[in-house]
């Protein structure tokens, strides 16, 4: 229960990977993982996951729907290294090889409430044209050594990427004890502050 002087604050991330918009591709699935700093530790929930393969509706929309729930709680002592959600989308190419269709990352929103994020996706480009061709032929496109690369800024300058579709993620964020630790996130009315001290603050900030 809420103690008067907490030593950690909690961040609960609920939500779902709603779907994606990849106009050219079909039969995609999505992997996600959270990347966070040293001072963060997940307390419950899955840190990584993989969605079902989804196929576009043949008629109306071109959206791929996963509706894959995210539910993770982090505890932390330091907002530095705020969790980021890294998603990577894979699907078969013409020859049926599983290739990557996009990488993307977004920070978990830090204001409590409901948020929707549309993550632009990209894939690394082959160095040479010939590689592009052979990659296409053999189904071995360039991939990041680790999808978590897209959550860091270091060393990205050596890569070239091509943008590729979007993934939509909705978040429902709850934080606890952040205010008590002295981290003020966004405006809050005095009415809210009462609820903040009492526990989880769920007021919507949008």
């Amino acid at each position, binding site marked *: 229960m809420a103690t008067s002087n907490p030593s950690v604050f909690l961040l609960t991330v609920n939500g779902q990977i709603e779907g994606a918009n990849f106009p050219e591709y079909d039969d995609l699935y999505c992997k996600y993982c959270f990347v966070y700093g040293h001072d963060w530790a997940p307390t419950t929930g899955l840190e990584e996951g993989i969605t079902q393969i989804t196929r576009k509706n043949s008629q109306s929309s071109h959206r791929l729907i996963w509706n894959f729930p995210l539910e993770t709680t982090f505890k932390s002592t330091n907002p530095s290294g705020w969790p980021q959600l890294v998603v990577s989308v894979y699907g078969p190419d013409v020859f049926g090889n599983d290739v990557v269709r996009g990488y993307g990352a977004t920070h978990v929103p830090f204001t409590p409430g409901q948020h929707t994020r549309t993550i632009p996706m990209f894939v690394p480009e082959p160095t040479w044209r010939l590689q592009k061709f052979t990659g296409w032929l053999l189904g071995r496109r*360039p991939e990041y050594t680790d999808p978590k690369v897209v959550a860091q800024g270091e*060393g990205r300058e050596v890569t070239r990427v091509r943008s590729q579709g979007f993934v939509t993620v909705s978040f429902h964020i709850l934080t606890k004890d952040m205010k008590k630790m002295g981290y003020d996130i966004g405006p809050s009315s005095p009415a809210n502050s009462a609820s903040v001290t009492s526990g989880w603050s769920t007021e919507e900030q949008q």
Partner: protein
Amino acid sequence: MASSSDIREKLRKKRRALQETLTKSKNEDDVQALVPSTKLSEEKRQTTMQEPVGSEEDPGETLKRTIRAQRQRRKKRLLEQTLVQESHDDDVEEISTIQPDGAEEGSAEKADDSVISLRSQTGSQKGLSSRAQQTPSAQSQSIDDFVKRRLEERLRAARSKGESLQQQEASFEPASRLQGLRDRDTVTRFDREVDPDRSGRHDASPALSTRAKLRETARRIGKGLPNAEEAYNFFTFNFEPDPPDGSERSSVKRRKQRKTADRDEDRGDEAEEQEEAEADEENEEENENQSEEAPLVQNEEEDLFVIDQSPQDFLEVKKAVYIGYQNHIQRESEHLFTPSFRTVPTSVKLPENMKPRYLEDEGLYVGERPHVSLTNENILENRILKMEEGMKWFGDDGRIMALPDPIKESSTRPPLFHMEEDVDPSLQTVYRKALKSKYANLYIAGAADPEGDYQLDVDVSGLIFSHHPLFSREHVLGARLAQLYDQYLTRQHNNLTGHLTDKLNGLRSALRNMLEIHGGQSLTQAMQQRFSEYSLEIRTTRQLRDSEQEKDRTLLKNIVKVWKEIKALREFQKFSNTPYKLYLRRENVDRASDEREHEDEILAEVVELEAESEEDYQKKLAEYNKQLEEWKLWRRKQKAKKKKKKKKKKGQTHEDTEDEDQEASESEGPVEEGPPKPEPPERLDFDSIEQQVREKASRIRRKPGEAILIPELSASGNITASELCPRSETARRQDVARRSLFIKILYNDKEVSRTDSRSLNTDFRVHFGQIFNLKIVHCPQSINLQVFEEIGSSCSLLARVFVPVPEPSVVTGNVPVEEYEFSSNQRVMFDHEGVGSDVPLSFEADGSNKQTLLTSGKLSCCVSWGIGEDDVPLAPPVSQQPGGIHSGLGRLDAVTYIGASGLYDMKKIGEWATQSRLDPNDPKNASIMQLLKVASSGEVTAPEYFRLEHLQEEFNFVTDEELERSKRFRLLRLRNQEVAEFRNYKCVPALEREVTDKVFQEYEKRLKEGEIIDTKEHLDSHRALVAKYLQKIRESVINRFLLAKHHYILSDLVIEEEIPSIGILGLNLFKLAEPKRPLKPQRKERKKVTAQNLSDGDIKLLINIIRAFDIPIRRPQSNKPGQVPQSAIQSSDWFLNQVQVRPFVEVSFQRTVLQTTTADGPNPCWNEELQLPFSAPNGDYSNASLQSVKDEVFINIFDEVVHETGVNDKDRGKSIHSWVEKHWLGSVKIPFSTIYSQSRIDGTFKVNTPAVLLGYSKERSHGANGGYDFMRSLSEGTFITLFITMEPQLVPGETIREKFDSQEDEHLLQASERFEREAAQGYPDRPCVSTVIDLNGKTVFITRFIRPLNPPQEFLDAFPNNPRKPRSALVARFVSLIPSLPDRVSFSGACDLWSTCDQFLTLLAGDEEEHAVLLCNYFLSMGKKAWLIIGTAIPEGPTAYVLTYEQSRYLIWNPSSGQYYGQYDTFCPLQTIGCLVNADNVWFNIQEYTTPMRLSLDVTKANLWKPFFSRSFSHPGLSSVQPEELVYRRTDKAAAAELQDRIEKILKEKIMEWRPRHPTRWNRYCTTTLKQFLPKLEMSRGQDVTEGHRHELQSLLGENRISGFPLHLPFSEIRPIVEAVYSTGVHSVQASNVEFALAVYVHPYPNNVLSVWVYLASLVRT
């Protein structure tokens, strides 16, 4: 738990008791009137719940006491029968606690129930029950009556409920059973409440298991089968399969049975009917709760009996309820309706006696009905028919009424296709996101409103060139003349001279007045002040006037001069280009008055000047007098001094007074330089003053009486026509005519308009006269006019004129046209008369006095705000304009705004303000005065220093001190710096107080202990020092790598397929044809796992032990030393019968020990796979951590020896005891780091066998047949074939390819890079090294490491008369004795640092490379031909060996072991030779094979060995990095001896520690004997051990069975020695009479290289 028979008996008893009590109660309570009870019952039947509660409350209370008394009595009686079982009691308790929940829930369901708490409930029930008891007979009638009806009703209802209720019942069954076991108090109707909470809390499984039985019972009861007896029988059968439920079940049933029995008693023949109801009763309990009155009756009835029953009475037996499938369906069919899809006959659908009428037939229009499939229609009809008023849906024709189909057949909308390519382009929606303009904020507020339109009028009237490249000389002069004239005109207009003269006159008269009034006497201080001020003012004014007058005069002179020049020029060139004409108008003056004025003026001036000079003189004089006084004073002093001195000196010596005096004066003279004698000031001569004044007057003023000259310039002159001009002039004029100009108007840097193009006039004026009205929406930022010159079709930008944005008050009509000057620095030259621009030009005949003219001119234009219809200026509001100077300052300068004022030089402003005599009352100056006041009040102190970031403090997070003090910040900082202790530190606490000091302890300790040497762990101070040093290097290297880690290349981030070459493609194609299951499968590469998501136990070390060769065999025990067993002597049957050796292999790793089965013979074959678990230190499976694992895999070969002792036991006869001993034969150790970096190790290794193995001998060539034996004889020793790998395969840490700085030549580096790249492309599996990194982290070319270096002198002197061989072996041994420490272990990253030989000898630890380099250098200095081999070997992987060429054969030296091999040696561990290095060159192997056996090692053959330095790129003469000479420290024998003792002590302690359960006895005699052997072994370097040694031992120790061996190790630390001893397993001998012997010998070599011998033996007395 009571058995069923018990229960039966009890039941019977209880029944009897019940009957008794019932009759008793009847008798007792018969007095009660019947009426109220019936009334009550009726009430209960009809009234709501509330009422019964209210009515019952009172009698309940009154009756309670009597009842209690009764109960007490009855209880006593019943007590003997009662058998309350513990478990049941528990259950009761449990339920009773839960009960309130149920009660509450019940009350929640009904609002009226709120009155009923559990207590009142029970209370009321007591009341009820007692009342019921009082009137049993009367009540029973009514009850029976009532119950009957009720039950009938309920039966119906319950049936309808069907199965679902049964389930519910099952779920609350466990609760209901308790009724039977409980006191009547707790028995309430709430027990039976459907309580999800309770049912959930009870185990679901018993409920489920009971369900089936219940159903069975229910079925039977439902059929009305069971009567009391039947039910009794039924329930007394023990049919319960699961005892835990048994009691529950039976209790439930018994209770029910009892109930039925009771009823039988009461109601006699009604019982049967009741019975039927009984079945559903339970189901109905729920109903009871919901219906108001019923439960009371029910409870009353129940409680009535319950009260007086012991728990056993409630063990009611009831049939398990089961409803059969048919039954089920039947029930369902009562509630469910499945519409059939058969056609409904028309007759049903129509009202009776009606015929269907078909409108269609009657000719009426009937629309087409919407299509519904026939089945669906039938279903619908059937469904409707079931409904009430279903008929109304049918029409006359017997069909469902329907409107005609509303759907049109053809679609009214164009079809939409969603395939992308098919989308009609006209229908495509293009979504464009609304973009916010970045100019949005530039709009003037309100600009969008219709009334808020702003208009800027730009009037471009024309331009005049003051210089143009096409000017002729005359033009230049003309322009100058015009300019001067302009100046003249402006001066005239301003008339400064006149003003100043007037002012001067005024001042003079004022002064005069003052003097007159006061008469020159008794001037007050203030008056004097004013007087002096006035005179000062006069002086400055006069000076100003004089200068102005001078200017006027020079201007006039200049005008005249230029005009004269023009005239001269016109005459010279014989034509005129300009129309200028200067007239000088003479204005005559009255000579007399003029002269008088002039004289007055001069006189006045002279007087003033005189007065001034007088004043000046007085001042100077005063000063002079003062100075004179001082001087005199000083003079006097001097004299006095001199006199004194003279007197003194006279007193001393009389003769040389003169000299002394002179000397004194000389010496004093320079010392005391007095003030110089001041000069008296000169009084100025009045005549000269007058002279000066007059001169000046004549210079700057016209002469008195002279006419005033007024120049007038007119352009009325005529220009010579072009025909009359010379050709060059004509050309110029033509050029002029060709030019035209236009002006572009740019608003906010955007061209908004341009004027018409006007041709250039001959007078270089262009008239535009155009007004542009700009309607603007953006804030005006700049208005720019660009002047363009057009020549033909090309136009060029001549100049830009920036026009200020007008104030809002500036509106069209009231603004004069302003002239803006412009100029251009373009250089233009012409070959005609045009003078050009930026070209020097002279008007003098001799070409001197050159001028350079630039194109320039004036643009006359005006910019103003337009005026609207009703005279409203169309200007934006003022607020957007910057305010006054000072407010503007404040706004512009954030620094002053924040408050860091005083940065401006207030003093200067102040000075300026006082000087300029600002009127403090002028409102215009108010702000400045204010500022000055503020500034001067606080004596403005501008800071004496300059700060770069004067706002830093404002932005500092915390102060530096606080940052230092805070532990949390410190932790965060250290982590950010990636300090080893804090790297990847998780969860830095959020609060300061939670950071404990403990966190830093280790770190601080390390910092503190940097210098302190811990000798305890290292036994040797030098080693400790070295370890520290190594640690330091390691840290610096790690820091470097940490930096390097942050540099990425593409392959770090992106996995990309290599471009497949043709060869690979071909191979892949070839692979398709490969057999799927080849007969000889090859080991395939497994998928590699990045070591991130691993945990303990995930990694296993797989060790496949295949076979061994040449294991030493046992020597038969023989007490005769002389008899040497020879193989030749052995008979063949000995060979067959005698077990030579029974070896097995034991592998120990991280203290896990596994062993193979035992095989036979000296060449065993095991072929076994052992799996050893691997756990990383601290569970950290990162690459860096795995690389630094120092653990080693010990593979020991043991001999299993079985000893048998026959024991004769008197009782049991003879028995044989046998015990197994294992004798160590040899070991191979492989560091984990090698396995990790190699990922697999496959090969045959030489087993490290002890030099002497007591009890064993090498027996070989029993049959010297076959080549194999011959081959084997080449290599001595035992060999074992192994395959080691890890599961899963880990990715070894990537090498750091950071470019290190280097002092090498850039060409060399490039060449080496190219060399390595080519090598890697051509032969990817051959290591090629040309540059290496030294300890300083610099890239160094490899050949620099090779240089002949002297080995220790004592080795060279060792065998003075022997040939080289032993010496080189000795040197190799010395090198091998330096402990080996892989770089990747010490540097935790896969980097290879090369240290020079002196560094290596200082560190006494190094990789194979260092060993190899040192050995190679020694060999070179010994005059051998030696090379460094860069190659791969087993088990080390990429390594360095040494190659020597002597006696026409090549020898390969393993520098780490000191062994050497011939080129064709089978067991040479070197597998691949990549390149050879010597001091001059690097050769890369480009032969087909890599194994030394199949190579030609002749590096001179260029087609086999590719040299680095060739003819095209010759050796640049690289100097060596090695020192000239190695200096060796003398061996320290005393230290070695000390170390020897310490090792021995530690080992003994360890062995005792390993044998915690057995006493460890040391055989001192044996130890001393062994100790004597060890130096001998060292001398012989472990070889050539004489047989005598063993015999000696044997003879010494007599009948002891001895097994033992010496171990030999290079010394680095104590830990490896202990490990090695442990791995031999000597300590594990279990025999009771075992004794041990341990001897240690440390042999010192130069430079503290130590060779450690440990002799271990175990003795068993036989």
